[in-house]
């Protein structure tokens, strides 16, 4: 019950999904769409589980006065405020207009968007510090990494790029040819790895995700 049934469920649904791929008929498609729909709906329940986990971890922090517990208050405050706006407590709880709620939209525009964009823009700093630290001619491999990166960066630098047409040609050759070869080798490997792992999951060989009992 605790282990055999889940494993057989995995097998049945896995094999079904493989078979349905070869059957274009509507009835197979119909079940396929059902299954995908179900996964989304289950996902919503899981989200509730996630929110519950977030609340519990934050609450524990506050209750036991762990380090930085005060900030967990901010998290909970943001969370509850946004939920209240999302369900539009004043007027129409029952329609999706919560998502158009003035405060909901403004929290999104003036809290989520600025922070999100700023987090993303940190990449400009990190790409520089990573380049400084890693691009050193320590070994053959590191030198290859360094040289390829430098050629491409020079090519796209507005000043050095136009120096020589060969720089441009080399850079686009690098981006087109070896790049293609390496990506293809990785993709073939990854494809095989995914197929093999999926097969192991379906056959019940890889089962770490089910835990133990």
């Amino acid at each position, binding site marked *: 019950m605790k282990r055999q049934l889940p494993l057989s469920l995995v097998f049945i649904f896995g094999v079904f999904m493989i078979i349905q791929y070869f059957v274009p008929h509507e009835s197979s498609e119909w079940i396929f769409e059902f299954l995908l729909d179900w996964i989304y709906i289950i996902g*919503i329940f899981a989200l509730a*589980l996630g929110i519950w986990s977030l609340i519990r971890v934050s609450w524990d922090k506050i209750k036991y006065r762990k380090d930085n517990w005060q900030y967990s208050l901010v998290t909970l405050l943001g969370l509850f405020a946004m939920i209240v706006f999302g369900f539009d407590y004043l007027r129409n709880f029952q329609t999706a207009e919560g998502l158009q709620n003035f405060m909901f939209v403004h929290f999104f525009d003036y809290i989520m968007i600025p922070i999100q*964009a700023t987090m993303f823009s940190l990449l400009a700093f990190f790409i520089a510090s990573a380049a400084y630290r890693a691009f050193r001619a320590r070994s053959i*491999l590191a030198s290859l990494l360094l040289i390829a990166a430098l050629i491409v960066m020079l090519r796209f630098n507005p000043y050095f790029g136009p120096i020589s047409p060969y720089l441009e040609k080399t850079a686009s050759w690098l981006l087109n040819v070896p790049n293609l070869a390496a990506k293809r080798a990785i993709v073939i490997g990854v494809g095989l790895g995914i197929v093999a792992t999926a097969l192991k*999951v379906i056959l019940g060989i890889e089962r770490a995700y089910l835990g133990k009992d």
Partner: protein
Amino acid sequence: MAVTKKISLLILAIVIVLFAVSWIAKTGTFEDTGMPLGLSVRDGFLVTFAAFLTLSIFSFLYKDNPYYKFAEHLFVGVSAAYWMCVGFWSTFVGNFIPKVSEGLSNFFEVPYKGFDVFYFIPLILGIMLLLRMSSKIGWISRWSLAFIVGTTAGLNLIRYMRSDFISQVSNTFVPLVVDWQGFGAFFSDLSLNASGQLIMTMSNWVIFIGVFCGIIYFFFSKEHSGFFGGASKVGIWVLMVTFGASFGYTVMGRVSLLVGRLTFLFHDWLGLIN
């Protein structure tokens, strides 16, 4: 200890003063454009607050600090709730309710699509998942997990077999001599142009050998020595060249993200540039 506390209080005071100054100044700017006072106050606050959050995140580059912590925790709470609300309204109300209950459909004002008994299965699976909160019968949640994992494993197996494996293999079939018209033509048209015969032919060779050696690098059940060692070494070289080139190529795009953010600070907030 007392000194650092004093300093951080001082910083807090400065931040609050600057915040207030910016709020007032921004309100003034908005009012100048003919906006009513109430709206100006509100928008002045919003822009100031967005700028405050932006700077708080940037301050992380110096070191972890209360402002970053504040922005981070606020962001986590707000975004978690945001996705929950979106998920609830779009999937649960939009997709699930109309297929199971007319009463609830009317309550949520979504068009009822007719009762569908099959939609009780995800409901049951979802509730099983929620049983995780109980430690005694939490194992039931594995059934839902098994359903999800099984379905998607089957789906992925077939999808990757086709797109990542079969089609990539067939793409490797390239002619090793491009458009051969004899040695005379070859040497008379010899050029380093990307569309020239020499470069095209050479590129095809590099692709073929690169893929070949790359795959050898990913062999696990064979010691990398002898011919295998040599080939896998070439494989990792090709990989490294690629990684370097991809890194270099990305730099430009990342810088423009920062340009966008700084433009917000300098233009939308401070009004320093137009």
